[in-house]
């Protein structure tokens, strides 16, 4: 009987996983909630299991997913990113049920998911970190600790949920008064979002670059890195554009960061694929931020420049294989840029465009282009999930070539129906600072002109609307 792997996710990442599973000649089992019933991952999988009416709650229901795996006879589960991917209880449930969880052990997820424990591990291993506090005690005591911390490190200070991640559960505090007000709110929010009310503080690094390192580790402890990614271009701490490798010119610094990442992974007994995130300040000091214990949205850029299939490697490692390559085998070639094409209106503060139907979908092709998407013409975007439609990754030998390709592909990408981030990205692809590699996390705030564009993605369909009317009426009523 063929190996079966259940894909506990939806959208583009589900399809990415299904493709890797099927390339290994295994069978993929999809799961879905009702709002996703027309989603393409269901059709591409070898079989699909309906979880429930959703939304979101069934994708997050550990028991239902374990049951689906058992019922379909899947030996392993790949969680993708988001949903249950970094939930240690889910990894634990798999371990208990004898199902292979494609990712690190529940213990590692627990330790690294708890930002405070993670910081302890890294401190012991001598990894440089942004100064931070322990978990704040409840009530007045915690507030007092917080105000003392702020006095020492100077505002602004980040107030973070201990179990938060992916940019969520973070707030920027500028005054003592605000600190007093926000701590209880942050606790309540953390409780609601992560079922854990603990919060802690971190000094803010002003306008940093966000650089991360992809690592892979097998069960023997062999750990290699696949180089850096720059994810500085973000809005509200959510990444929009990712680039590999980092554009920092100091190669020795990048090598040091990569070595530090491997050290951090080893210190936490890391297994499988993970990402070590760093902040780099204006003086090129680097600080450990966190380790993400899952495949990242932006793993594609690393795949493009290394030629290594990260998801395929993840599966092989989880099924017991050792790493087939060593650090010397990992060679970087060229540059890759990934843009997350979201159904959002950048001109309306990235308001999601869910509920709309994709009436035209024309994607670019040709040399050096990779698309990881899941929507198709006629697909109605469910309102209840995230707004990512497709990731467009371009690869080029030089940075200039890569940016040229990016621009060409964005110009050729037509999505009508929902508004998308394409025209906004097209502006970025023509922006001098972007072209020259000058960007940090303040990039969008400092380049407001990027939001000035005419939304002409729909121009052909608008004009066709008139053609349809002329055809229907037998004359043009607007010219009569």
């Amino acid at each position, binding site marked *: 009987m063929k190996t079966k792997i259940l894909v506990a996710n939806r959208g583009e990442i589900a399809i990415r996983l299904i493709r890797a599973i099927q390339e290994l000649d295994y069978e993929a089992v999809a799961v879905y909630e009702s709002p996703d019933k027309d989603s393409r991952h269901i059709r591409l999988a070898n079989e699909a299991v309906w979880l429930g009416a959703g939304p979101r709650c069934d994708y997050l229901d550990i028991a239902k997913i374990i049951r689906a795996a058992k019922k379909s006879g899947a030996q392993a589960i790949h969680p993708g990113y988001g949903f249950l991917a970094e939930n240690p209880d889910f990894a634990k449930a798999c371990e208990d049920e004898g199902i292979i969880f494609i990712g690190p052990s529940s213990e590692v997820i627990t330790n690294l998911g708890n930002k405070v424990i993670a910081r302890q591990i890294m401190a012991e291993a001598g990894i440089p970190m942004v100064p931070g506090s322990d978990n704040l005690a409840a009530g007045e005591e915690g507030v007092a600790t917080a105000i003392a911390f702020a006095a020492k490190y100077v505002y602004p200070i980040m107030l973070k949920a201990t179990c938060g991640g992916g940019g969520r559960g973070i707030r920027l505090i500028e005054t003592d008064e605000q600190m007093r007000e926000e701590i209880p709110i942050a606790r309540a929010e953390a409780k609601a979002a992560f079922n854990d009310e603990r919060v802690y503080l971190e000094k803010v690094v002003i306008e940093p670059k966000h650089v991360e390192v992809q690592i892979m580790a097998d069960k023997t402890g062999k750990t290699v890195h696949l180089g850096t990614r720059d994810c500085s271009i973000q809005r509200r701490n959510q990444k929009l554009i990712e680039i590999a490798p980092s554009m920092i010119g100091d190669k020795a610094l990048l090598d040091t960061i990569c070595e530090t990442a491997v050290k951090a992974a080893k210190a936490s007994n890391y297994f499988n694929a993970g990402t070590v995130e760093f902040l780099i300040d204006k003086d090129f000091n680097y600080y450990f931020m966190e380790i993400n214990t899952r495949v990242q949205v932006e793993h594609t850029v690393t795949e493009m420049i290394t030629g290594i299939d990260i998801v395929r490697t993840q599966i092989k490692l989880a099924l017991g294989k050792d790493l087939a390559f060593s650090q010397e085998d990992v060679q970087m070639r060229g540059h890759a840029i990934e843009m997350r094409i979201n159904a959002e209106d950048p001109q309306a503060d990235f308001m999601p465009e869910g509920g709309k139907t994709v*009436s*035209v*979908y*024309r994607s670019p092709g040709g040399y050096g282009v990779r698309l990881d998407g899941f929507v198709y*013409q006629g697909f109605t975007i469910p309102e209840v999930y995230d707004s990512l439609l497709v990731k467009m990754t371009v690869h080029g030998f030089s940075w200039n070539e890569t940016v040229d390709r990016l621009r060409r592909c964005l110009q050729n990408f*037509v999505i009508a129906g929902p508004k998308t981030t394409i025209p906004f990205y097209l502006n970025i692809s023509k922006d001098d600072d972007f072209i020259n590699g000058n960007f940090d996390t303040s990039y969008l705030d400092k380049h407001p002109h990027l939001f000035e564009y005419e939304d*002409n993605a*729909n*121009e*052909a*369909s*608008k*004009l*066709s*609307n*008139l*053609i*349809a*009317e*002329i*055809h*229907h009426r*037998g*004359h*043009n009523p*607007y*010219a*009569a």
Partner: protein
Amino acid sequence: MERIVQGQSPAEIVKQLQNSDGYHITNTARDLSQSDFKNRILLHTDLLAADARERAGYFSLEITGGASVHVDILRKQVDPFLKLELLREKMPTTMFQTLCRGVNLFGYRPYPQNVIRFTVKEFAKYVDVWRTFDFMNYIPNMQAVFEEVAKAGKLNEPCICFSTGPEHTDAYYLTKVKEILEVTGEDIVLCIKNHGGLGTPKRIGELVDTIRQKYPDLPLHYHGHNTDGNDVGRIVAAVQNGANIVDAADASFTGFYGPPPILTVIQTLKELGHNANTIDEDAVIETSEVIRDERQHYEAFESQIKGFQPTVQIHKLPGGAMGSSLEQAVKGGFLDKMPDILHKELPKVQKELGNYWSVTPGSQILWTTAVSNVQGGERYGNPSGDLRNLLLGKYGPFPFYEPDEWIFEKVLGADWKKVLEEEGGVEDIGDMDIDKEKEILTDRIGEDPTDQQLVLYLQHPNDAVEFFKFEAKFGRVYVLPPSIFLKQGSFEPGETLEFVDHTGKEHMVEVGPSNVAEDGETSVYLYVDHHQRVYKFAAELPDGAAAPAAEMSKEEILDLAKAGDIRASFSGNVCEVSVEEGQEVAVGDKVAVMEAMKMQTPITSEIDGIVTAISAKVGDAVQPGDKLLRVDVDE
């Protein structure tokens, strides 16, 4: 000689004209479009012609103004400013010319001074030559335009409107030239505006000669129409007697009422020893070749009756109004009465109303009055609001003589003398609160308007808003060729349509099947850039179902009005609601204004009472018998 190019100062242009031996040509593309194609020639065609027209070396290209600003937004769905901007990109040197109706701008009635100045200022950014006229030849009506044009550093080309008849003597026109020069100074070109194509070559030759003798250095521009087929004759006479510039158009689009072909003018005058300055004949010929194939797509907008109209010497309708008048006759079902209207009633009305110049908006007043006199039974029995304003002197004083008293009595009522005394005279229109209008527009389109949008809105409030909405829905449609935009009948199944959008992207649309659902909704399938799209159209009510059950007679409507139920008495648009609910009104008070055939007519209350309901709003298209508002007797 050196070519005259855009950017030169009026003084430089005038000097160059004074020093040149030959004559210059203005390509009157706008007037051609207005006279022979109901103003429908699309920017798409003008852009095709742009390169060759640029090389042809004209004095100017008349490409905007007249009725075209309105038709651009109303029927061509193109922004008149964007049109000039795109043409300028392709024609960097040629001067662009407009036709401005003085105080009436590009519309049909006087605008407030600050609106005039704002409009001229915005258009002067693109327009180099300002041909300005007033249909009463009343010079003060052009003053504000003259001043703003001069302020913008652009060339004023004031007109004397020309007509025929015993009063239209050389001596009279000389006084008008003098009056113009007194306000404009010498750095102008004077236009003899023969909008009807009236008079013989001999008459035009004499007039040009008289002005030339009196003002040897004044550059003269002869503008005519070929309605009777003889404008080349008049042009020849004008040039022989000293005109510096003449108007003509691209041969492949010339027809009946517009200007004659450029090449014919050049060839005729060459034999007589007059050379067309800076003209590249090959480029003139090439222009006609480039656009020749496009003409077939404009056929539906050509004149309903074919052939020249030498009887224009009798009815005097201007070339620019011929097409639209015939169109109204067809739509109104009175094409058979045209000989009566044109050859009997119109000349009669013309004489009765003072023999002024039949050109916008005066020509519309003559025309609607003549139609109403023939159609309505009783002559002057159903006067338009604009005829009333004419008699009140709102447009300016009558140039030669006043109409007979019985006409005043018919139009203004029995106490016409009192009305005239109280309301008569040129209206001093106060400045408009433009900032407030801007707020209203912002509200209506949901975003801050540009100055250009505001200018269009101040000209034609409802039509401008409709146009902005149209563009939001259908995009920049000027990219569509006339074969698509003016298509008559449906496309063939499987037909492939190609166009390039305004950003330069090429698109292909293949026409797919249409399906009618049980509820009558039609789904039109198109393959847009190889992707299927479906456009749905709700079922249309069968003919007549949407119309009122039975059209009411004029008597019924009047009876209802006397009971306070005020209804539309003719089909048109509501352009003003003058009262509010709860307002007291007396017999004869204006409660609303309706517009039809460009003429406004006030609607008055038949009783004393209080306005209790308003059913119509500004911009509504109403049919006879449709409710406007209700007045109840106050008890």
